[in-house]
Protein backbone atom coordinates (compact mmCIF):
# COMPACT_ATOMS: atom_id res chain seq x y z
CA UNK A 1 0.00 0.00 0.00
CA UNK A 2 1.52 3.31 -1.02
CA UNK A 3 1.29 6.61 0.91
CA UNK A 4 -1.53 8.19 -1.12
CA UNK A 5 -3.90 5.26 -0.74
CA UNK A 6 -3.76 5.71 3.02
CA UNK A 7 -5.44 9.13 2.61
CA UNK A 8 -8.39 7.65 0.77
CA UNK A 9 -11.70 6.66 2.32
CA UNK A 10 -12.82 3.21 1.20
CA UNK A 11 -9.78 3.31 -1.04
CA UNK A 12 -11.62 5.59 -3.49
CA UNK A 13 -12.45 9.05 -2.17
CA UNK A 14 -9.54 11.26 -1.33
CA UNK A 15 -9.85 12.88 2.10
CA UNK A 16 -8.88 16.32 0.78
CA UNK A 17 -11.49 16.07 -1.99
CA UNK A 18 -14.10 15.17 0.60
CA UNK A 19 -13.28 18.22 2.74
CA UNK A 20 -13.44 20.53 -0.28
CA UNK A 21 -16.72 18.90 -1.31
CA UNK A 22 -18.28 19.41 2.12
CA UNK A 23 -17.11 23.02 2.24
CA UNK A 24 -18.64 23.68 -1.16
CA UNK A 25 -21.93 22.11 -0.10
CA UNK A 26 -22.01 24.30 3.03
CA UNK A 27 -21.19 27.41 1.00
CA UNK A 28 -23.87 26.56 -1.55
CA UNK A 29 -26.52 25.99 1.12
CA UNK A 30 -25.50 29.23 2.85
CA UNK A 31 -25.73 31.12 -0.43
CA UNK A 32 -29.17 29.68 -1.25
CA UNK A 33 -30.38 30.48 2.27
CA UNK A 34 -29.13 34.06 2.03
CA UNK A 35 -30.58 34.60 -1.43
CA UNK A 36 -33.97 33.30 -0.32
CA UNK A 37 -34.01 35.55 2.74
CA UNK A 38 -33.58 32.70 5.23
CA UNK A 39 -36.37 30.60 3.76
CA UNK A 40 -34.16 27.51 3.47
CA UNK A 41 -33.46 27.35 7.20
CA UNK A 42 -37.02 28.29 8.13
CA UNK A 43 -38.37 25.51 5.89
CA UNK A 44 -36.25 23.02 7.84
CA UNK A 45 -37.33 24.52 11.15
CA UNK A 46 -40.98 23.97 10.26
CA UNK A 47 -41.99 27.67 10.32
CA UNK A 48 -45.26 28.45 8.55
CA UNK A 49 -46.22 31.78 7.01
CA UNK A 50 -49.25 33.49 8.52
CA UNK A 51 -50.96 36.75 7.69
CA UNK A 52 -51.45 38.59 10.95
CA UNK A 53 -52.72 41.92 12.24
CA UNK A 54 -50.60 43.40 14.99
CA UNK A 55 -51.35 46.44 17.12
CA UNK A 56 -48.22 48.25 18.32
CA UNK A 57 -48.12 51.05 20.86
CA UNK A 58 -45.24 53.41 20.29
CA UNK A 59 -43.18 54.76 23.17
CA UNK A 60 -43.60 58.47 23.88
CA UNK A 61 -42.72 60.75 20.96
CA UNK A 62 -43.51 64.37 20.04
CA UNK A 63 -46.94 64.53 18.43
CA UNK A 64 -45.41 65.82 15.17
CA UNK A 65 -43.44 62.59 14.79
CA UNK A 66 -46.53 60.46 15.40
CA UNK A 67 -48.68 62.46 13.00
CA UNK A 68 -46.02 61.81 10.34
CA UNK A 69 -46.94 58.10 10.27
CA UNK A 70 -48.59 57.31 6.94
CA UNK A 71 -51.10 54.56 6.22
CA UNK A 72 -49.71 52.24 3.56
CA UNK A 73 -46.05 52.61 4.54
CA UNK A 74 -44.20 49.37 3.91
CA UNK A 75 -42.29 47.79 6.76
CA UNK A 76 -38.56 47.37 6.36
CA UNK A 77 -35.45 46.17 8.10
CA UNK A 78 -32.03 47.57 7.32
CA UNK A 79 -31.98 47.83 3.52
CA UNK A 80 -34.75 45.33 2.81
CA UNK A 81 -38.48 45.69 2.52
CA UNK A 82 -40.61 43.30 4.56
CA UNK A 83 -44.00 41.87 3.66
CA UNK A 84 -46.10 44.16 5.84
CA UNK A 85 -47.77 47.55 5.87
CA UNK A 86 -49.18 50.12 8.24
CA UNK A 87 -52.97 49.93 7.93
CA UNK A 88 -54.11 52.34 10.66
CA UNK A 89 -52.86 54.54 13.45
CA UNK A 90 -54.28 56.66 16.23
CA UNK A 91 -52.42 59.17 18.38
CA UNK A 92 -53.27 58.69 22.06
CA UNK A 93 -52.88 60.87 25.11
CA UNK A 94 -50.26 59.81 27.60
CA UNK A 95 -51.04 60.28 31.28
CA UNK A 96 -48.27 61.50 33.53
CA UNK A 97 -48.08 62.50 37.18
CA UNK A 98 -46.03 65.23 38.85
CA UNK A 99 -45.88 66.96 42.22
CA UNK A 100 -47.01 70.59 42.03
CA UNK A 101 -45.64 73.50 44.09
CA UNK A 102 -47.99 72.55 46.99
CA UNK A 103 -46.69 68.99 47.12
CA UNK A 104 -49.88 67.56 45.59
CA UNK A 105 -49.77 64.81 43.01
CA UNK A 106 -51.22 66.06 39.75
CA UNK A 107 -52.28 63.58 37.08
CA UNK A 108 -52.92 64.72 33.53
CA UNK A 109 -52.09 64.39 29.87
CA UNK A 110 -48.54 65.08 28.73
CA UNK A 111 -48.80 68.22 26.55
CA UNK A 112 -45.77 67.29 24.44
CA UNK A 113 -45.13 63.54 24.30
CA UNK A 114 -47.89 61.21 23.10
CA UNK A 115 -48.32 57.57 22.20
CA UNK A 116 -49.71 56.11 18.99
CA UNK A 117 -51.49 52.81 18.45
CA UNK A 118 -50.35 51.57 15.06
CA UNK A 119 -51.96 48.63 13.28
CA UNK A 120 -49.84 46.66 10.85
CA UNK A 121 -50.80 43.73 8.66
CA UNK A 122 -47.90 41.48 7.75
CA UNK A 123 -47.04 38.00 6.58
CA UNK A 124 -45.01 36.59 9.44
CA UNK A 125 -43.21 33.35 10.11
CA UNK A 126 -44.99 31.31 12.73
CA UNK A 127 -42.85 28.83 14.56
CA UNK A 128 -45.08 27.73 17.40
CA UNK A 129 -45.58 29.63 19.65
CA UNK A 130 -43.84 32.69 18.25
CA UNK A 131 -44.50 34.97 15.27
CA UNK A 132 -41.51 36.72 13.72
CA UNK A 133 -40.90 39.21 10.96
CA UNK A 134 -37.34 39.86 9.88
CA UNK A 135 -35.23 39.54 12.99
CA UNK A 136 -37.94 40.64 15.43
CA UNK A 137 -40.23 38.38 17.44
CA UNK A 138 -43.81 39.47 18.01
CA UNK A 139 -45.39 38.45 21.32
CA UNK A 140 -47.70 40.76 23.30
CA UNK A 141 -45.43 42.80 25.56
CA UNK A 142 -42.35 42.47 23.34
CA UNK A 143 -40.39 45.59 22.51
CA UNK A 144 -40.00 45.98 18.75
CA UNK A 145 -39.13 48.76 16.35
CA UNK A 146 -41.77 49.99 13.92
CA UNK A 147 -39.46 50.52 10.96
CA UNK A 148 -40.30 51.78 7.48
CA UNK A 149 -38.33 53.92 5.05
CA UNK A 150 -39.22 57.00 7.14
CA UNK A 151 -39.85 55.63 10.62
CA UNK A 152 -37.96 53.90 13.37
CA UNK A 153 -40.18 54.08 16.43
CA UNK A 154 -39.70 52.04 19.59
CA UNK A 155 -42.93 50.19 20.25
CA UNK A 156 -44.57 47.49 22.32
CA UNK A 157 -46.66 44.68 20.83
CA UNK A 158 -50.17 45.06 22.26
CA UNK A 159 -52.05 42.34 20.36
CA UNK A 160 -51.60 39.93 17.50
CA UNK A 161 -54.20 37.94 15.58
CA UNK A 162 -54.30 35.93 12.40
CA UNK A 163 -56.44 37.47 9.69
CA UNK A 164 -56.51 34.66 7.10
Amino acid at each position, binding site marked *: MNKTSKLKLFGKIHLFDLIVFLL*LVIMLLGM*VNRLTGGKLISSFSGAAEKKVEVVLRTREYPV*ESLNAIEIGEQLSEN*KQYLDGKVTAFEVREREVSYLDENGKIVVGNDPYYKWADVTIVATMKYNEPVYSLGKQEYVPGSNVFLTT*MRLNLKSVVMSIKEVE
Partner: protein
Amino acid sequence: MKRRLNIIDYSLILIVLVGLVGGGLFIMKKLNKNSESSTIITGKQRVRMVCDAHSILPDIAEKMKVGDKLVAKKAFQNAEVVDVKIEDDFEIGAMDGEIVKVMKPEAKYVIVTIEGEANRYGPYLDLGGQALKIGEFYWIKTSSANLFGSILNIETLEAENE
Protein backbone atom coordinates in the same frame (compact mmCIF):
# COMPACT_ATOMS: atom_id res chain seq x y z
CA MET B 1 -0.89 10.45 -18.96
CA LYS B 2 -4.64 10.31 -19.42
CA ARG B 3 -6.57 11.99 -16.58
CA ARG B 4 -9.98 10.71 -15.64
CA LEU B 5 -12.73 12.56 -13.78
CA ASN B 6 -13.62 10.96 -10.47
CA ILE B 7 -16.82 11.16 -8.44
CA ILE B 8 -15.63 14.31 -6.64
CA ASP B 9 -15.01 16.11 -9.93
CA TYR B 10 -18.50 15.22 -11.12
CA SER B 11 -19.96 16.40 -7.79
CA LEU B 12 -18.14 19.73 -8.02
CA ILE B 13 -19.36 20.27 -11.57
CA LEU B 14 -22.90 19.43 -10.45
CA ILE B 15 -22.74 21.85 -7.51
CA VAL B 16 -21.44 24.67 -9.68
CA LEU B 17 -24.21 24.05 -12.24
CA VAL B 18 -26.88 23.94 -9.54
CA GLY B 19 -25.48 27.18 -8.07
CA LEU B 20 -25.53 28.92 -11.44
CA VAL B 21 -29.04 27.76 -12.35
CA GLY B 22 -30.39 28.53 -8.85
CA GLY B 23 -28.74 31.96 -8.81
CA GLY B 24 -30.06 32.76 -12.29
CA LEU B 25 -33.60 31.71 -11.38
CA PHE B 26 -33.48 33.74 -8.17
CA ILE B 27 -32.28 36.88 -9.96
CA MET B 28 -34.96 36.48 -12.64
CA LYS B 29 -37.62 36.01 -9.99
CA LYS B 30 -36.42 39.09 -8.14
CA LEU B 31 -36.35 41.19 -11.31
CA ASN B 32 -39.90 40.12 -12.17
CA LYS B 33 -41.09 40.90 -8.65
CA ASN B 34 -39.40 44.29 -8.75
CA SER B 35 -40.98 45.21 -12.05
CA GLU B 36 -44.39 44.27 -10.66
CA SER B 37 -44.46 46.20 -7.41
CA SER B 38 -41.68 46.95 -4.97
CA THR B 39 -38.83 48.15 -7.14
CA ILE B 40 -35.61 48.54 -5.16
CA ILE B 41 -34.62 52.14 -5.77
CA THR B 42 -31.02 53.13 -5.30
CA GLY B 43 -29.40 56.49 -5.88
CA LYS B 44 -30.12 59.99 -4.69
CA GLN B 45 -33.38 61.00 -3.07
CA ARG B 46 -34.30 64.61 -2.38
CA VAL B 47 -35.73 64.99 1.11
CA ARG B 48 -37.02 67.64 3.46
CA MET B 49 -36.70 66.85 7.12
CA VAL B 50 -37.56 68.58 10.35
CA CYS B 51 -35.22 68.06 13.30
CA ASP B 52 -35.38 69.42 16.82
CA ALA B 53 -32.85 69.84 19.58
CA HIS B 54 -33.44 70.53 23.27
CA SER B 55 -31.27 72.19 25.93
CA ILE B 56 -29.18 74.22 23.50
CA LEU B 57 -27.11 77.13 24.80
CA PRO B 58 -28.64 80.41 23.49
CA ASP B 59 -25.34 81.54 21.90
CA ILE B 60 -25.03 78.26 20.01
CA ALA B 61 -28.68 78.27 18.93
CA GLU B 62 -28.19 81.70 17.35
CA LYS B 63 -25.42 80.32 15.14
CA MET B 64 -27.77 78.01 13.24
CA LYS B 65 -28.70 80.04 10.14
CA VAL B 66 -30.87 79.56 7.07
CA GLY B 67 -28.69 78.81 4.04
CA ASP B 68 -25.96 77.02 6.02
CA LYS B 69 -24.82 73.77 4.44
CA LEU B 70 -24.65 70.58 6.46
CA VAL B 71 -21.20 69.27 7.26
CA ALA B 72 -20.19 65.66 7.75
CA LYS B 73 -16.97 63.69 7.38
CA LYS B 74 -15.02 66.99 7.18
CA ALA B 75 -16.89 68.04 4.02
CA PHE B 76 -19.98 70.00 3.02
CA GLN B 77 -22.97 67.83 2.18
CA ASN B 78 -25.51 68.44 -0.53
CA ALA B 79 -28.05 69.68 2.00
CA GLU B 80 -28.84 73.03 3.59
CA VAL B 81 -30.85 74.59 6.37
CA VAL B 82 -34.05 76.13 4.97
CA ASP B 83 -35.75 77.16 8.19
CA VAL B 84 -34.77 77.72 11.84
CA LYS B 85 -37.08 78.36 14.79
CA ILE B 86 -35.63 79.14 18.20
CA GLU B 87 -37.86 79.00 21.25
CA ASP B 88 -37.32 78.78 24.99
CA ASP B 89 -36.81 75.19 26.04
CA PHE B 90 -39.29 73.57 28.40
CA GLU B 91 -39.89 70.75 30.81
CA ILE B 92 -43.14 69.10 31.73
CA GLY B 93 -44.26 69.76 35.28
CA ALA B 94 -47.26 70.51 37.51
CA MET B 95 -48.50 73.92 38.63
CA ASP B 96 -51.77 74.94 40.31
CA GLY B 97 -53.12 71.41 39.95
CA GLU B 98 -52.43 71.16 36.21
CA ILE B 99 -49.81 69.51 34.02
CA VAL B 100 -48.03 72.30 32.14
CA LYS B 101 -44.97 73.09 30.09
CA VAL B 102 -42.51 74.88 32.35
CA MET B 103 -40.43 77.22 30.23
CA LYS B 104 -36.64 77.34 30.66
CA PRO B 105 -35.35 80.57 29.05
CA GLU B 106 -31.74 79.68 29.95
CA ALA B 107 -31.82 76.94 27.32
CA LYS B 108 -33.25 76.95 23.82
CA TYR B 109 -35.38 74.56 21.85
CA VAL B 110 -34.32 74.69 18.20
CA ILE B 111 -36.36 73.34 15.27
CA VAL B 112 -34.40 73.10 12.04
CA THR B 113 -35.77 72.25 8.60
CA ILE B 114 -33.25 70.80 6.16
CA GLU B 115 -33.52 70.09 2.44
CA GLY B 116 -30.99 68.00 0.61
CA GLU B 117 -30.06 64.92 -1.31
CA ALA B 118 -29.93 61.71 0.69
CA ASN B 119 -28.41 58.44 -0.42
CA ARG B 120 -31.05 55.81 -0.91
CA TYR B 121 -30.86 52.07 -1.02
CA GLY B 122 -34.37 50.63 -1.07
CA PRO B 123 -36.01 51.63 2.21
CA TYR B 124 -32.82 53.04 3.70
CA LEU B 125 -31.93 56.74 3.56
CA ASP B 126 -28.80 58.38 4.87
CA LEU B 127 -27.38 61.87 4.77
CA GLY B 128 -23.81 62.56 5.78
CA GLY B 129 -23.42 59.02 7.08
CA GLN B 130 -26.42 59.31 9.43
CA ALA B 131 -29.53 57.21 8.90
CA LEU B 132 -32.69 59.25 8.31
CA LYS B 133 -35.62 57.90 10.31
CA ILE B 134 -38.32 59.70 12.25
CA GLY B 135 -37.65 59.02 15.92
CA GLU B 136 -33.89 58.60 15.52
CA PHE B 137 -31.23 60.90 16.92
CA TYR B 138 -29.51 63.19 14.43
CA TRP B 139 -26.50 65.51 14.65
CA ILE B 140 -27.50 68.79 12.97
CA LYS B 141 -24.05 69.96 11.99
CA THR B 142 -23.08 73.00 9.94
CA SER B 143 -19.77 74.85 9.86
CA SER B 144 -21.14 77.23 12.54
CA ALA B 145 -23.04 74.99 14.94
CA ASN B 146 -23.46 71.38 15.94
CA LEU B 147 -26.71 70.43 17.68
CA PHE B 148 -27.61 66.99 18.95
CA GLY B 149 -31.25 66.43 18.16
CA SER B 150 -33.71 64.02 16.66
CA ILE B 151 -35.78 63.75 13.52
CA LEU B 152 -39.42 64.84 13.80
CA ASN B 153 -40.53 64.42 10.19
CA ILE B 154 -39.21 63.41 6.76
CA GLU B 155 -40.76 64.07 3.36
CA THR B 156 -39.48 62.68 0.08
CA LEU B 157 -39.69 65.51 -2.40
CA GLU B 158 -39.52 64.25 -5.95
CA ALA B 159 -38.76 61.29 -8.19
CA GLU B 160 -35.43 59.67 -7.52
CA ASN B 161 -32.48 60.10 -9.83
CA GLU B 162 -30.78 56.89 -10.89
